[in-house]
């Protein structure tokens, strides 16, 4: 009986502890790069939130620690695989990414600006769409499947060389109509549970929903390595999971809807540091 009460108390305590505010903590990468994990909200969402916060602040102390040092970050194993891929010749043109772009470091800053409008193609492109454009049209190689192995690994590699730089996606000009669509999707209450992204990530961040500590649903840390499935996960796959959890029919990774949602959600994080690959439970 005594033991039982103890167990119940422990359960209560862990709920209470986990439901504390986002951590008062600072993220310094590899003891040198200071990351911005909270900052003033960009003007376009300042009516709803004052401050934007990285999902890192909502995770437990061990998970946060794993992301502070590349040697402890399991996501970096996949970044290394992507580095090999970068140098691998593929396709009918006999080229690798390195043939045209030289070192991966030449991509520093690119991730921070995607999704981005491509003038020549007249379309909004995510990083993965851009990579596939290079593969199909310049390398004569097969396009990678969206959010899958090589594509998500390469996205993580490109993110890793932009870490510490502020997310800065453009939302005006030719991007505006896509951004508006993304915004509409963000506020639409889908599925049988009739829940929108905003219900959970704008109105209730910091609160517990069952065992989960709700963050602002930012994507500055994507791709994320999840301890749950021990691989890198893309933002579209995360969107899909969240929409599925509203008992709704989801969209597919790479769909026009998710491209728009990615642009919109990324824009809500304008000013936070690029953190990918980050660690989540």
């Amino acid at each position, binding site marked *: 009986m005594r033991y039982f009460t103890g167990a119940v108390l422990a359960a209560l305590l862990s709920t209470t502890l986990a439901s504390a505010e986002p951590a008062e903590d600072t993220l310094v990468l590899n003891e040198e790069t200071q990351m911005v994990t909270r900052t003033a909200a960009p003007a376009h969402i300042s009516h709803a939130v004052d401050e934007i916060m990285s999902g890192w602040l909502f995770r437990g102390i061990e998970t946060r620690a794993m992301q502070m040092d590349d040697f402890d970050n399991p996501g970096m194993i996949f970044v290394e695989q992507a580095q090999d891929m970068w140098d691998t010749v593929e396709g009918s043109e006999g080229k690798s990414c390195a043939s045209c772009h030289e070192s991966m470091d030449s991509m520093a800053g690119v991730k921070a600006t995607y999704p981005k409008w491509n003038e020549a193609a007249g379309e909004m492109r995510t990083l993965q769409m851009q990579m596939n454009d290079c593969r199909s049209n310049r390398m004569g190689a097969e396009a990678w499947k969206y959010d899958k192995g090589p594509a998500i690994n390469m996205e993580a590699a490109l993110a890793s060389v932009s870490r510490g730089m502020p997310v800065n996606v453009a939302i005006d000009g030719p991007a505006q109509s896509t951004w508006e669509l993304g915004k509409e999707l963000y506020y639409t209450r889908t*599925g049988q549970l*009739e829940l929108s992204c905003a*219900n959970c990530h704008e109105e209730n961040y910091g609160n517990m929903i069952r065992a989960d500590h709700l963050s602002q649903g930012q994507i500055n840390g994507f791709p994320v390595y999840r301890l749950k499935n021990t691989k890198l996960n893309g933002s579209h796959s995360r969107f899909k999971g969240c929409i599925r959890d509203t008992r709704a029919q989801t969209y597919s990774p790479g769909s026009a809807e998710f491209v728009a949602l990615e642009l919109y959600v990324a824009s809500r994080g304008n000013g936070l540091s690029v953190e990918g690959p980050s660690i989540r439970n």
Partner: protein
Amino acid sequence: MKISFMMAAAAGLVSSGAFAQEIAPTAVSFNEGAIEHSLSGVPGDPVNGRIIVGDKRQGNCVACHEVTDLVDIPFHGEIGPMLDGAGDRWSEAELRGIVANAKIMFEDSMMPSFYKTEGFIRPGNAYTGEAADDTFGPILSAQQIEDVVAYLSTLTE
């Protein structure tokens, strides 16, 4: 094979028996957010209602609400108000209305409507991510709603 067939037939009989007095989700009438009459025509069972409120696969109400009486179930959410004392704050008819469709009592509430089958955007087939098919029904049955209401009525202070 034979046994399961007979059990299925018996279950069919029971449910069609209840169906006689059951109010369909599309035929529910609300009075200021409350529902006066039992949805199933059968009194609710608070013991089963307690299970439904805590069970992830049924009501999963504790995903959003804390309930002291359900302290044996770990992880209660903090999206909605604590349900302790709900039986004092609300009449049975009001509780029935709130559980069936909280958005009538509380405009734009984040609380899902547990006895509703129409008006959704991209309704899915449970948690599969696929589109709803012809098995689509309310999240809780009429009797489950009654059981939950009976349980909530016991939450007095």
